[in-house]
C-alpha cells in the first residue's frame, strides 16, 4: 500500500439518504478510515461545492461511493463528473445498483408523478396548480432547476460502474469490509458485486420443508412460526431470489424478505426469477384451485420488482401513450 492516504468521495443521488447513514453506522471504524483516507467530497457531512470537484484532476479520487438512482439531470451530471474524477466508482446501495424502491416510479409516467406530487395529494396547497419547470422566469431572471427524467435509472445506465454494493441500505460492516478491501488493494474483478454469491435462503436459519403453499397471505394476516420457512407458511418471501449479505435480517425478525439486496449472481431479471419460484409453490393438478391460490398474490409486479424495476428486462410499465 502506498504511503499516501486514500482519496475518498461520497455522493448521494436520488435516494433516501439511508446509505449515507449506513456509512456513518460503521461507527468507530470511521476513525480507521480517517487514518487511511482523506474524504474529499461528501455533501451530507461536509461543505463541498461541485466546482471543487470539477477542479479536481481526472482520476484524482481513488474511490467514490455513489448512492441513489439517477432521477434527474443533476444526478446524472454529478455522476458523470464523479466518474471522471474517480479511479474506482462504487455503486452504493440498491438505488444506485438497481434503481431501488424509487424505481417503482417506473410504473408511472413523469407527468402522472408530478401531477400527484404537486396537485393531487390531500396535503397539497397549490391553488394555481403550478408544476416546477426546469426553466422558469422569476423577476426577469431565468431560474434553472434540474430536469426530472421520464424514468428512474440505475447508475450504470449512464456511467461505468466498477463495483456494486447493493442493500437498502447496505449493512455497515459490508461497507467497512469494502473499504478494507480497497485499502488492502484486494478488490475482485471490476464489475463485481461486493457480496457473497449465495442468496438470503443460505443465511436464513428457518427450516424449509413443504415447498407447497395452499394459501398466500399478507404478513399481517398471521403471526408466523419462527422456525419454519416463511414461504412455506404462505408469505411471499423474496429470499430465494435475493443476494445474500444482509444476514437474513428481515426473516430473522419474522418478516419476509423483500429483495433489497438485488438479484443473485448472473441473474438478469430478479423479479421474474422470484415470481417463477414463488408461483410454483402453489402447483397442484387442479388448475382452478391453483389459479385461486396464485391470485392471492395481489400485486406481483410491485412485490417482485420492489427494489429492481429499473434493472429488469422491461424496466417498467410500457407506456402506450408515449410517442
Amino acid at each position: 500500500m502506498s504511503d499516501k492516504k486514500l482519496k475518498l468521495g461520497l455522493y448521494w443521488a436520488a435516494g433516501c439518504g439511508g446509505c449515507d447513514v449506513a456509512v456513518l453506522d460503521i461507527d468507530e471504524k470511521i476513525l480507521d478510515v480517517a487514518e487511511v483516507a482523506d474524504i474529499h467530497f461528501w455533501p451530507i457531512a461536509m461543505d463541498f461545492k461541485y466546482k471543487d470537484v470539477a477542479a479536481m484532476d481526472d482520476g484524482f479520487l481513488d474511490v467514490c461511493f455513489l448512492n441513489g438512482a439517477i432521477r434527474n439531470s443533476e444526478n446524472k451530471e454529478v455522476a458523470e463528473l464523479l466518474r471522471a474524477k474517480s479511479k474506482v466508482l462504487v455503486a452504493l446501495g440498491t438505488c444506485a445498483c438497481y434503481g431501488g424502491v424509487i424505481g417503482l416510479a417506473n410504473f408511472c409516467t413523469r407527468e402522472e408523478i408530478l401531477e400527484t406530487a404537486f396537485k393531487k395529494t390531500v396535503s397539497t396547497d397549490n391553488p394555481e396548480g403550478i408544476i416546477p419547470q426546469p426553466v422558469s422566469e422569476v423577476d426577469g431572471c431565468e431560474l434553472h432547476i434540474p430536469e426530472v427524467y421520464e424514468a428512474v435509472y440505475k447508475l450504470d445506465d449512464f456511467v461505468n460502474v466498477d463495483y456494486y454494493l447493493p442493500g437498502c441500505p447496505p449493512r455497515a460492516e459490508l461497507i467497512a469490509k469494502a473499504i478494507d478491501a480497497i485499502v488492502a488493494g484486494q478488490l475482485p474483478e471490476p464489475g463485481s458485486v461486493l457480496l457473497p454469491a449465495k442468496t438470503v435462503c443460505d443465511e436464513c436459519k428457518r427450516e424449509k420443508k413443504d415447498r407447497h403453499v395452499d394459501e398466500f397471505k399478507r404478513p399481517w394476516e398471521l403471526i408466523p412460526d419462527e422456525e419454519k420457512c416463511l414461504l412455506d407458511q404462505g408469505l411471499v418471501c423474496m429470499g430465494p431470489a435475493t443476494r445474500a449479505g444482509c444476514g437474513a435480517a428481515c426473516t430473522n425478525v419474522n418478516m419476509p424478505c423483500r429483495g433489497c439486496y438485488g438479484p443473485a449472481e448472473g441473474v438478469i431479471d430478479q423479479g421474474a426469477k422470484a415470481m417463477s419460484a414463488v408461483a410454483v409453490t402453489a402447483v397442484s393438478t387442479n388448475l382452478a384451485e391453483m389459479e385461486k391460490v396464485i391470485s392471492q398474490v395481489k400485486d406481483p409486479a410491485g412485490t417482485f420488482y420492489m427494489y429492481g424495476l429499473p434493472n429488469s428486462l422491461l424496466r417498467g410499465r410500457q407506456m402506450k401513450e408515449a410517442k
Partner: protein
Amino acid sequence: MSEEIKIGVYVCHCGSNIADKVDCAAVAEFASKLPNVTVARDFQYMCADPGQELIRKDIKEQGINRVVVASCSPRMHEPTFRKVCESVGLNGYFFEMANIREHVSWCTEDREAATEKAKALVAAAVARVPLQEPLYERYADMNDRVLVIGGGIAGIEAALKVSGGNKEVVIVEKEPSIGGTMAKLDKTFPTLDCSACILTPKMVECAQRDNVKLYTYSEVEKVDGYVGNFTVTIRKKARSVDLDKCTGCGLCITKCPTKDIPHEWEENLTTRTAIFTPFPQAVPNKPVIDRENCRYFTTGKCGICAKVCPTDAVDFEQEDELVTEDFGAIIVATGFELFDPSVGPQWGFGKFDNVITSLQFERMVNASGPTKGKVLLKNGEEPKSIAILHCIGSRDENYHEYCSRFCCTAALKLAHLAKEKTNGDVYSFYIDMRTFGKGYEEFYNRIMSEGIHFIRGKGTEVVERKGQLLVRTEDTLLGKYREVPVDMVVLMAACQPGQDTEKLAQTLAIQRSADGFFLEAHPKLEPLKTATDGIFLCGACQGPKDIPDSVAQGAGAASEALSLISAGKVKISPIVARCDEDKCGGCMICINLCPYTAISYDEEKKVAVVNEAKCKGCGTCSGSCPTGAMTNTNFTDEQIMTQIEGVLAV
C-alpha cells in the same frame, strides 16, 4: 473458451421441399455475414451422404467447430447430424438445427415471408451455437438383481419369470405368507377352476427356487439410488418364530390359549389364535405371533407355544431387523384392497348381520373356509334368497369414480356359487354388465341360463322391515321401483388402492393417478413402467385387474426388468439439470418440482444436488430456480435467451 468460434452453416434444399418456398441461397448468403460464421452453404440434400460429407470436409479442412444445419425438424435428423459431427471428432452438442421445413417451407404460402422466417431461425441457431457446451452420453453400471414388492399373483408371476431368466429376485411381502388376494378366492372365473389349485404350485415354486428369496412379514422401508443401482432397506418385522428352526408342525397353534382373535385372513368370519399361520397352504408355512394379542406380550405370562415347540423355534426376543440389499430394477406388485362398504350406511354393512362383502362370501363358499363351504346366515340357517349388489363404491363419484372391472364377472361367479350351494333365489343388481374378458361374456350367458334374477338397477339401499332385508332399486329395464326381499346381501365392494400406496409412492418416488393407484408412464404405450426409470408396475396396484391381466402384467413387468438389467449398463442422457453449488442458495424450491426426485438437498453444503441418472432433463427446475444455479444442459438460460434475441434479429 479461448478457441476461436468457427461456424459452418448448411442450408438444405430438401429437393424442392424447402427450396420451393425458401430462397436457400439467400439464406446462406445472409448466414455468411453473421458473426462467427466461417462457411455458409446451401445444398440439395444435407442428410444424404454427399451433404454429410460436406460437413465432415469443412470440419476437417476449414476447422469448423460449430455446425448449424437448416433443414427439417430436429425431431427427425438431429441424431443424424450429431453423428456426422462426432464421426470427425466434433462433439455432437456443438451442433444446432434450424427447422426451416416443417416450420417454414411446408406451412408458409409466401416465399418472401418464408425466406425471412428461415433467416430468423438460422440467425437464432448461429447466435446460440457458440454458447453450446460439449456434452457426453454416459453409462452407469447396473446391478442385475430384481426386487418384487408384493407377493400376490402378479408379484409371484413376475418373480418366477425373472428367476427363469437366471437373475436373482427378492420378493418382499408384508403379510406372513405370499399368495395375496387370489389365495382367498374359491373359484376363478370364467372357468370356475379352483383358485388354490392353480396358485399354490406357483407359491411353492417361489419358495423352492434357489434364485428367489422371500421376505415375508416384511416391508420396504427406504429406497435410495436410481435405475440400475437401487439400495433398498427392508424391514423384517419380528415374527417371534425362527424360520430356520421352525418345521411348521403347528403344535404351538393347537396349544395357544388365546383363540378369540378375529381372523383377518378369513375376513373376520372366524377367529384364530395369537400364534397362527394365515391359511393352511401358506408359504412359508410357518406361524407368526401377533404380539398385540399374545398373552406373553400383553401380560408377560404364558409362553406355552415356546414350551411346546419341539425345535425351540419360538423366540420372544426377536426384534425387527433391517436388511439392505442392492437391486437394478424394482417391480411393484402391491395389489389392491377392498372398499369398506360400511362407509356408505345405505348398504347396511356392519348394521345388518347378513350383509357381507364379496370376499366374505368368497371365504364362505370356500371348502376350506370358516363355514366349510356352506352359505350360512348368522343364525346358522341357509339363506333362501341372496342379493348380489354390483358397483359398491365403484362408478360412484362419492367413492370411486372408476369401474372396478373384475367385479361384474366375479359377481356372476358368486351368483353361480350361491345358486349352486343354496338353490334359492339369487338376485343380481347391476348397472351395466361389463364382462370384458376372454370367455367372460360366454360365462355371463351361461350363468343367465341358471335362472339368476338379473335386475338392471343399482342396489341402492338395504333396509330391514319386520326382520326382512329388502333391497331397494329401480328396475331400469321395467321402469319400476322395487323392494326385493332377501335373506342375505353380498356387496361387490370396489377395488381400491391399498392403504400403504401413498407411503410406498413416497418411498419409491413414483406417482399416483387421481384414483390413487400407481401411475404408469404412459397409459397405452408404457403401461408397466413408471416415470421413474427402473421401477415397474404390475397387477392391481396400477388399477383394478383380474387374475389373467395381473399374471400377464407380472410377466410383462419381468420382461421389462430383464430387458433393462440384461443390458448391463444404464445410458444417461447428457441433457440433464446441473446445479452450480457456488450459486445455489439452498432454497429447495427445485426439490419439490422434480417429478423424478432427482434433486436432493445436501444438508452439509446446503445446496441442491442433482442425481443425473434420475434426471430426465425436462428443465422444470431451471425454469423456477431463483438464482440461476440450476441449469438445463443444452437449454441454458443464456442459450435460450440468445436464441430469442436471434429469432427477433430479422
